[in-house]
């Protein structure tokens, strides 16, 4: 033996899991959704995806190089994950400059300004999306129709999503207003089509089956635990049932699956204990349905997650795991 002995504290073995591997797993889990978005939206999807990823990585790199001089965390793929998630939350015909703005906001304001990976309060991709939704409401809510627009980026046929149709329809009944009649096309989508993703919507949220495959992969690799997604989906379903609606279509459409599986489960912005996770999930589900039913926007997943992100520190403080020996048997 000719090396100086190394002394460190126990444990002396370590799991093979790393931050990089975890982020890579998230990207792998998103591949089916990415593939679907490319299939349905073609060129536009590719441009938006590439811009968002490049924008996020470049922002993180520049901030770490010039503003916060510290260890570079580019290598851990977290910026790529944010970029992909942001892109999947956008319509595929969004102009490049808007996508770039969203990326800069997501990484620069929502992530790096709070101290980088792990210290952010709000999910960067959702913060980016909500920022764009509030700043560019028109561009953000016109969705290109799938398949027909594959080879175009601009000037394509657009339509509303199934959710907005449902909502306008509901508005029509209750108020008698003429909003619905001003809509050019009432979208009709069957559950099977919703499952596959043949409908208008943000790039990544259209295909339920692709998202479910990704979720199954994440659960299998133990990247996420079941608590948050199941709590969200179950509470949404239950709430719709209580309101007397069929929960199937609302579950399969809109950003719900993408949000429940990939966005709400973001490590830094979700609670630490299983109890907390369930409360967080249920609250997201309830807020989502409330916004969908009675709010100004047809979709509320992003707002719900963002709101609950803000409440996460509070949940962590008051919903702690039960300690060993607390519920003594004797």
């Amino acid at each position: 033996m000719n090396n100086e002995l190394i002394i460190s504290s126990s444990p002396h073995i370590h799991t093979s899991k790393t931050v990089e591997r975890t982020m890579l797993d998230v990207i792998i889990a998103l591949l089916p959704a990415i593939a679907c978005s490319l299939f349905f939206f073609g060129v536009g999807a590719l441009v938006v995806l590439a811009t968002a990823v490049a924008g996020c990585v470049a922002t993180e790199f520049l901030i770490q190089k010039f503003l916060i001089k510290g260890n570079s965390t580019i290598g851990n793929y977290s910026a790529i994950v944010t970029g992909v998630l942001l892109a999947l939350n956008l319509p595929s015909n969004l102009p490049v400059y808007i996508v770039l703005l969203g990326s800069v906001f997501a990484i620069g304001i929502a992530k790096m300004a709070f101290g980088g990976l792990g210290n952010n309060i709000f999910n960067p991709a959702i913060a980016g999306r909500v920022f764009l939704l509030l700043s560019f409401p028109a561009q953000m809510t016109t969705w290109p129709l799938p398949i027909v627009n594959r080879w175009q980026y601009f000037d394509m046929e657009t339509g509303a999503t199934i959710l907005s149709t449902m909502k306008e329809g509901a508005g029509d009944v209750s108020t008698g207003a003429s909003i619905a009649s001003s809509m050019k096309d009432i979208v009709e989508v069957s559950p099977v089509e919703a499952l596959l993703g043949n409908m208008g919507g943000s790039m990544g949220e259209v295909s339920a089956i692709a998202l479910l495959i990704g979720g199954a992969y994440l659960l299998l690799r133990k990247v996420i635990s079941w608590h948050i997604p199941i709590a969200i989906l179950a509470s949404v379903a239950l709430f719709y049932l209580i309101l007397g609606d069929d929960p199937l279509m609302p579950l399969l459409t809109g950003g719900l699956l993408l949000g429940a599986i990939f966005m709400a489960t973001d490590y830094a912005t979700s609670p630490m204990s299983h109890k907390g996770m369930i409360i967080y999930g249920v609250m997201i589900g309830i807020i989502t349905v409330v916004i969908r039913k009675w709010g100004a926007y047809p979709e509320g997943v992003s707002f719900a997650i963002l709101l609950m992100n803000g409440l996460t520190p509070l949940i962590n403080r008051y919903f702690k795991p039960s300690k060993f020996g607390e519920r003594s048997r004797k």
Partner: protein
Amino acid sequence: MLKTFRKGGIHPPENKLSALSKITDIPQSKEYVVSLSQHIGAPAQCCVEKGEHIAKYQLIGKSAGFVSANIHSPVSGTVRKIDKFKNAFGFETTSVFITPDGQNDEERHPLTSEVTAKLSSKEIIGIIDNAGIVGLGGATFPTKVKLMPPDNMPVDTLLINGAECEPYLTNDQRLMEECPEEIIEGVKLLMRAINVEKAYIAIESNKPEAIKALEKAAAHATGIKITPLKVKYPQGGEKQLIDAVLNRQVPSGGLPASVGVIVQNVATAYAVKQAVIDGTPLTERVITVTGPDLPHPGNYRVPIGTPISDIIEAAGGLPENTQKVVIGGPMMGKAASNLNATANKGMSGILIVPKRYAMRQKAENCVRCASCVSACPMGLEPYLIARLSELKDYKRLEEERVMDCIECGSCSYVCISHRPLLDYIRIGKNKTGAIIKSRKTNNK
């Protein structure tokens, strides 16, 4: 469904490399250096003099207080000197240096079976006390103290710990496979010592041979049950083991006796049999020497006071690429800085770590993945406790129950950001413990 404990836990690769190698003796060393503090509590008081000739099993250190233990000579020979000697971690303890003469004169007092059958509880505990038996699972708490629980805590069950949940280590496993009858004898004696009718021997299911051997040996014993457990770390922790086998949870800060249980290691049971029936005090133990690159990982019967380097030599010597030597298992063992140090009663294994596994990976930001929270067997929040410890917020540390931490290392093991969670938790626990202690003495 196999039984296991309820909360948290991890399953690191088992790597029981030495599971098939029989327990063997090692060649005699040139000198034995026997430390007088090999147990938790007051160091023993030396009762031999320089130049004195001593027999094997002769008392050389006398227990100095209630929480203390006798030390006996592992060999016959001459006392070269009594001096300070550095242990494996560089701290000095008073030790007796013995040059063996190879004669092996023995001083032991075996008892006939008629006498042993009539021994009272007090007498058995007395013999255990005289034999210097301490908890051989690694904590080295004097066994006689554990066998005398406070009067207000009636004990109904003896739990024998054969879980050996630490990866790599196989010393208990081999002992259970090779000496099941002796262990059962020891368990019976322990049951008589604490007056209980029931005893469980808990063994993780990755040791089917050991389970079989003990089941066979215990076939005619009344009240002894072998309980196979699901493989999960840290099942060998007292509280976890009681939870797993008996479904009772020891309250925070409480003793196992508060739920009517006393836990002893299998090797301790074996030592009890040797002490009571064969009349030999505790002067040797089984040590696993293992490591991914070691030529002959194995299990050795080692007299206390044997230099660590001699033990490693018996297993084929240190490989060239060694960069860390861990005393104990990989999860809870301590890295040694001094290989001239000698074996003691608490040394369950020597793990030789090659260069490629020796260094830790660089710590990154906590990403709040909550793996540590799910892994913690005590239901604590390691990420938070480590952070509070860094911030020296001892008041909140106490509120977050840092004193419940059993230092099993599951949180550090699962951390995907490679944060040294346990390092910080341990210092926070030490400081908080000191504050609580001083507050108690002030209140008195």
